[in-house]
């Protein structure tokens, strides 16, 4: 098999469920997990004579995401009807946008360094979700839950610009991060707040043709999307290798056996008979509204990332982790602004190794973290001024600080953790360690110099970590070397 000669061409359609209070065209509640059909009304059930009304929040959130992605916001946008019959579609059409989507263009960057690429967004449009058919709960037939019918969505459609599963993975994660930053969506993929359809085709490397594609529908994880794309590339390559042809079809990814399979009951070619929704007048997006939304945008992950790496000199890896959530980036930056003497890399290590994991484990947000900022600052000062070693600080002082929330300086004294620079005190412990480990001393003298760190560790243990490591090392070396004579 020579699949390496093929290059994949991938386009995504991502459905984003919006953080509104109510449905797209009526006042029904949309919170997750409610009892089946408890969040419905005459409008969402399409009773005779009911009419839609546009949810302003949906429009605002669409503009918010559009501006953040550098899209052009359509000044007069309108809804269209998309017709098909299905049991979970109450009106017999979906209210969506076809000819005049609210956002056009825009980009998302994937990759780092030389492999950094801009993925173009074709458009973002507003639409409503359908209900949910449940086929396995009743022997008499299928059940339908209309709670989801009419829930507001955005659909983001990319150009076929993605070239690998890794890029797909990054794209979805970046988008998810962004919608969370913007409070546009909770981005919860497990609950279906973000769902991706991947359109995959392959072509000989270097070619610019677009070949027959397959669409893998409704993937609810970035990892699964990447895997589905990988499988699809392999599957299509194998078909072409054997001289076969790709059939255009809709497939679904099955995570259990890590493969894509054709969707059962293959749909016929639909004619959706789109036409402008006559019950909703066109929406004019005023400059004032654009200005308002623009001024309400938070600092975006890319902006934080840029600041953290260039201004604070953090590594890309650290910056990636810190900008993952808006609240973390914000709190990190605030703390640094307040204490310009702190080394950013020290604070970043503390965030990444201690604070963020602690918050995740206790299920609290960074804003709810119990240790006050000034304590964090003085904790780091103890390390920076060598009053306490990094390892002691992390292993001993930090847990105590979390527990007592006392001032780190006082706490370190109380726990007797302040480093000792007293050479006599350290030399005493060194002597004891050497006496207790004659065999190791012998081995060292025979050339096993790596044992030095073992001796340092033993001294640390004896002194409860208080011995200054540099002084300990110096004394140990002189003791061990002198006794060779």
């Amino acid at each position, binding site marked *: 098999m020579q699949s390496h000669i093929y290059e994949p061409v991938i386009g995504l359609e991502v459905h984003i469920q919006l953080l509104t209070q109510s449905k797209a065209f009526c006042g029904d509640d949309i919170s997750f997990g409610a009892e089946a059909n408890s969040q419905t009304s005459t409008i969402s059930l*399409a009773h005779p004579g009911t009419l839609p009304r546009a949810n302003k929040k949906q429009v605002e959130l669409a503009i918010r995401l559009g501006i953040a992605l550098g899209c052009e916001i359509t000044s007069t946008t309108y809804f269209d009807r998309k017709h098909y019959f299905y049991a979970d579609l109450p009106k017999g059409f979906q209210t969506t946008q076809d000819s005049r989507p609210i956002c056009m263009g825009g980009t998302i960057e994937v990759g780092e360094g030389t492999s950094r690429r801009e993925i173009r967004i074709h458009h973002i449009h507003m639409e409503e979700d359908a209900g949910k058919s449940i086929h396995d709960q009743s022997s008499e037939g299928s059940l339908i839950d209309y709670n989801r019918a009419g829930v507001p969505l955005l659909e983001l459609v990319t150009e076929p610009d993605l070239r690998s599963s890794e890029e797909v993975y990054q794209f979805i994660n970046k988008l998810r991060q962004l919608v969370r930053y913007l409070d546009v969506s909770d981005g919860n993929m497990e609950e279906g707040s973000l769902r991706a359809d991947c359109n995959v085709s392959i072509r000989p490397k270097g070619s610019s043709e677009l070949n027959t594609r397959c669409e893998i529908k409704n993937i609810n994880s970035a990892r699964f999307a990447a895997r589905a794309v990988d499988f699809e590339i392999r599957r299509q390559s194998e078909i072409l290798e054997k001289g076969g042809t790709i059939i255009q079809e809709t497939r679904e990814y099955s995570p259990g056996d890590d493969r894509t399979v054709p969707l059962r009951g293959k749909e016929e070619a639909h004619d959706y008979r789109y036409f402008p929704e006559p019950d909703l007048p066109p929406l004019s997006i005023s400059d004032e509204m654009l200005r308002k939304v623009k001024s309400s945008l938070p600092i975006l992950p890319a902006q934080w990332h840029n600041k953290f790496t260039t201004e604070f000199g953090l590594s890309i890896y650290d910056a990636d982790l810190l900008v993952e959530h808006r609240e973390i980036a914000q709190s990190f930056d605030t703390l640094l602004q307040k204490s310009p003497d702190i080394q950013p890399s020290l604070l970043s290590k503390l965030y990444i190794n201690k604070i963020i994991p602690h918050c995740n484990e206790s299920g609290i947000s960074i804003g709810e973290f119990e240790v006050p900022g000034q304590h964090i600052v003085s904790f780091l000062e103890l390390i920076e001024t060598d009053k306490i070693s990094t390892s002691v600080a992390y292993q001993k002082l930090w847990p105590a600080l979390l527990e007592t929330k006392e001032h780190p300086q006082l706490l370190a004294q109380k726990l007797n953790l302040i480093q000792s620079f007293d050479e006599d005190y350290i030399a005493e412990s060194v002597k004891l360690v050497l006496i207790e480990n004659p065999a190791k001393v012998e081995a060292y003298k025979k050339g096993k110099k790596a044992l030095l760190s073992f001796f340092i560790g033993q001294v640390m243990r004896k002194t409860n970590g208080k011995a200054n490591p540099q002084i300990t090392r110096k004394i140990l070396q002189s003791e061990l070397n002198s006794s060779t004579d």
Partner: protein
Amino acid sequence: MIQVSGKNYRCLDDIQKGLKGGDLTSVQLVQAYLREVKANTHLNAYVEVYENEAMTAARDLDERIHTSSAKLGPLFGAVLSVKDVIAQENHHLTAGSRILEGYTSIYTATAVQRLLDADAIIIGRVNCDEFAMGSDNRTSVYGPVRNGEHQEHVPGGSSGGSAVSVQVNTCLASIGSDTGGSVRQPASFCGLIGFKPSYGRISRHGLIAYGSSFDQIGVIGKKLDDVTKIYEVMKGVDDYDATLIDPLMVEDRPIRKKLAYLKDAVEHPSLQPEIRETFLKKVKSLQARDIEVQPVDFELIDYLIPAYYVLTSAEASSNLSRYDGLRYGRRSPHATTLLESYSKTRTEGFGLEVKRRILLGTFVLSVGYYDAYFAKAQKVRRLIKAQISRVLAEYDGLLLPTTPRTAWKLGAEMSPVQIYLSDVFSVLANLVGFPAISLPMGKDVENLPFGIQLISGTFQEHLLFVYSKLILDDEDSVVETI
């Protein structure tokens, strides 16, 4: 007009005076109407009579009339019928269709709620063409309605039951809907006043949709004053209909004492000669009363029907998609799969004319035909609107006959296209969204009535009412005084 204890009550004003003065009680009034309902069941105007409910409302109203502190709504004493396409909570609603057999509405249309809040009494639900698609009330699942004064003739449609219920005095007025003339044409066929307000004037919330960008609730009555009073109560913004226009945004304009009439309509080959003669006489009499009335050209006249039927059928095919028997209404008992359930429910539930329009609408929206039909018809609609707007920027109103001919016989064999063409003068107001009124104008050799229609600029209903008074030959009314 309704007679109670030997006294005639010609209009709402008479009734309200009677009720307040103690000559009349609401109970007597409703009983009198109910007698007329029973005497006219052979006309098939009513689908359901709310006898007990109307009597209860009447007793309640009588009590309040005699309580000095009680506030009475502006429509107290108005007993109305409502077309079977407008929702009222806990009342059946079927749009004259088998597909909604047994359906009970779980909410009330905004317009109906406002009528009830204004102390109107609703006496029953009246027959109409299935989903308001038809021009002679012959497509209803309940069978045809007969014209009250010419029982071998149709009453017009689709609000045929509404017109007949007023014609034979079973109620003061009726609430209908008008998508292409469904209020004005039956009014014309029955010698009544039929009024369709501007698109966006009365909330469509609770009105079963046929052509969403054409539909408007209207009133059929005998007296202009009654019609305007009922309209005033129903009109105005509503959170449940996004297409309503805020009246504050509408410019008022002065009266110019200038009307136009469509020369191409008056010279149209389909126009019955008596209607043409009477119409031209009417023009002369208005001119004699110091109103400038000028003929204007309208060469797009033969595009009205094609544009109207392409667009309304397209919207109807979409609007009627919801009737699938899944959540409400009648579901075919003969289906075993979902697809079969759709096709059988809709095949058994819809009548011939509704199916014809769904198919036509589906066709004109299909890939490959959209541009040739739907998009083209939209362009024609825009052209028509631009042309009529230009006329109405210069003139206060536009006169034309309501219909090319008078009511045909119940058994008349007519092709669908022949019937469609009979709407040629009434669809204009819906294509442009402007208010229009049909007023009784005369009778033909068979003594069948016909109407004259006046269209004014959008949201200029007040102009319609001013000129309507004049046209109705109310000698006392002069334009300046209103």
